[in-house]
């Protein structure tokens, strides 16, 4: 375990902002503070240094904290600072060993600074000396304009500080800077990835899972709660609404043309998500649809649903291929959880010939006749709410 002293946090897109940059920085700083407080007991301070923040603490920072911070949207990368001797050979060797294991880093730039001006060689000489050793012993190249990693060396009176390793973070914008949305979560592969995509763009999310009890068992809830432990990390804590949906499904199935079942289930799910969104002041609902993936995700069905949606619908995966979704799911560690088998009400209710191109007249008149307001309100009221903290722990359950 390395003895990490300070952490340099490189800010992602927010630094491109103009006059409103301050808002983004303040939010990111608050988000980071919330995370650090959960993983670090000693006092710490966060200094804003334009494109980067420097986090200074009394004690050393653990890798667990660094990895957790990497899941905080808005951060591009984190460079921990190590305390070393004044022997540049020794410092270089530590840097070289670390660089060798960081295969994604191809280019570097050394930036050194002498706080103690009595040090026998000047900063430029330090840069050249260390860079020369790295070039000798690794295949990394120098790039002074746009390096993959900045290696900072600071010479103090009796010791040195230096950075040597880059932890890649999720990037994008800080959570809370791009509105609030309600994410429709299923046990499948797509919706967790969709959530991640919008988390990176800074959308605060609350999650809704539609529990088709008695058509599916309570086991599926465990799976959803497991997925939430991963997704809530990107949200700095959040809430999950488990909405009892069986009664609504039963009603729809009994009253509609069989082929419209799945489409209508989605329509009423979107309505419920919008209702919850109203309570939470959310601007949009978020779904994991990919165009043409299944019959309910044809462009005709999507546009029919959007026409009737009470809120803007975000579908960040609409142009994704399955393999792209799978790769991202693996990256955010939801793939294995999503792949666990579970009962699926959709399969149970699936009509033989699900509608691909809905008849506008039929759909409009059905929705006009079956507003189901009471049924939907009851479903929202009967929701079971789970609260997750920044560690992804399910800390509270409200019924």
């Amino acid at each position, binding site marked *: 375990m390395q003895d990490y002293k300070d952490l340099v946090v490189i800010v992602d897109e927010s630094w491109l902002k103009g006059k409103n940059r301050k808002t983004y920085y303040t939010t990111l700083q608050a988000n980071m503070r919330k995370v650090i407080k959960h993983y670090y007991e000693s006092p710490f301070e966060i200094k804003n240094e334009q494109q980067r923040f420097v986090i200074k603490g009394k004690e050393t920072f653990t890798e667990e904290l660094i990895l957790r911070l990497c899941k905080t949207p808005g951060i591009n990368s984190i460079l921990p600072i190590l305390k070393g001797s004044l022997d540049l050979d020794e410092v270089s060797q530590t840097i070289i060993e670390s660089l060798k294991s960081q295969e994604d880093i191809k280019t570097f730039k050394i930036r050194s600074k002498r706080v103690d001006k009595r040090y026998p060689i000047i900063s430029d000489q330090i840069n050249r000396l260390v860079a020369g050793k790295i070039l000798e012993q690794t295949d990394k190249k120098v790039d002074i304009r746009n390096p993959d990693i900045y290696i900072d060396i600071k010479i103090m009176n009796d010791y040195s500080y230096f950075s040597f390793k880059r932890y890649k973070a999720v990037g994008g914008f800080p959570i809370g800077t791009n509105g609030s949305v309600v994410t429709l979560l299923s046990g499948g592969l797509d919706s967790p990835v969709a959530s991640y995509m919008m988390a990176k763009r800074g959308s605060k999310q609350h999650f809704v899972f539609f529990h088709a009890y008695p058509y599916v068992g309570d086991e599926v809830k465990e799976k959803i709660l497991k997925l939430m432990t991963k997704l809530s990390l990107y949200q700095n804590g959040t809430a999950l609404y488990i909405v009892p949906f069986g009664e609504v499904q*039963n009603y729809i199935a009994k009253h509609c043309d069989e082929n419209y079942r799945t489409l209508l289930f989605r329509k009423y799910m979107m309505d419920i998500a919008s209702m919850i969104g109203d309570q939470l002041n959310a601007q949009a609902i978020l779904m994991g649809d990919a165009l043409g993936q299944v019959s309910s995700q044809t462009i005709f069905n999507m546009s029919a649903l959007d026409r009737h949606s009470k809120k803007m619908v975000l579908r960040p995966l609409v142009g994704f291929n399955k393999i792209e979704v799978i790769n991202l799911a693996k990256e955010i560690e939801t793939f294995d959880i999503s792949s666990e088998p579970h009962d699926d009400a959709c399969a149970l209710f699936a009509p033989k010939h699900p509608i691909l191109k809905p008849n506008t007249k039929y759909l409009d008149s059905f929705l006009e006749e079956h507003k189901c307001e009471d049924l939907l309100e009851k479903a929202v009221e009967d929701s079971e709410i789970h609260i997750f903290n920044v560690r992804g722990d399910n800390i509270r359950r409200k019924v």
Partner: protein
Amino acid sequence: MLYFDHAATTPIYPEVISLLNLSFSEDFANPASQHRLGKEMAKKIDLARSSILKALDANTNKYQVVFTSSATESNNQVIKSFNKDRILHYLSDHPSVTNCFKEQGLHLNDSENLIERVSDETELVILSHVNSQSGQIRDVNRIAKHLKEINPKVRVLVDSAQGIGKVPLSLKDESIDYLVMAAHKIGGPRGIAALITRIDAPLKPLLNGGGHELNVRASTPSTPLILGLEKAIQISLENIDEKLEKMTIKSQRLKEELRSIHPNIDFPFGSAEVSPYINTMTFKGLPSDVLLRTLESKKVYVSSSTACSSKVKVKNKMLLGLGLKEDIQKNVLRISMCQKTTDDELNEFLSLFKEAVEELSFLIK
């Protein structure tokens, strides 16, 4: 609440609860202790042993009772006392039997003739008295006698967890070497079971420890649980034939009326030689777990397979052994009653069952 899952476990009889309450506060001493209090416990336990043997017409010079924690433990202990390659059993037996075997042992489908398979090599034959899933009754005394005519050295283990106290069984003819039963299936407490063995039959301890339970089952015996077990046996054996007759009428009515609710409902195991306490149906086109949960939402409780394996969604070897093909296995529902199930409860069950099926009618494929 309508509880129709008595084959999984039963609520404790009020008489047994009263006894347990009293006994838990009074009968705490260790029966192995040498003081009077301990000796008194040992005496109570011994009385329970002879009462159980007597209730099953067993010759007390030839049979003994070993108290264990469960029928699963008892089955395991007997099986592990033998060379598994020389044991003959059915695939339809309870998982506490079948899961003791991997590659070893000779496993039979219900359609296979046991008598043809037994040889001079066979050391142990395992018979389910009443199958926990199908309710099918085996005439274990007759089969055991026949087996011993072929191979006099063969030992017979009868798993009667679903039989004792419901379907008459006797140890009088001495054809059975081991009899397994558990208290919780007949209104007794969970955590106590009796393994009745012939004194001359081999039995190796599963646990090493003090010399409790005739040196074959280390662990301090729980006097209250043992007394609870004995009481439950007494209650359920009382007028057993009459109760069986009444239950048969209830079962016939249940089956008839369920059949009339939907044409896809079938009782694949027939009704001859089937315990009326266990009524297992298939519902073609409707997954039984959906029906189970719909009933559960009406506070009606049944099983979609044996409780011990209901989470297993892959093919069920027990159902395969009973001749139920994979495509129908997820449509199996077990409705099990107890001696105390009343006509009113049955009526209400039938009406709520009908309601559930009507609610799910659009799903039936």
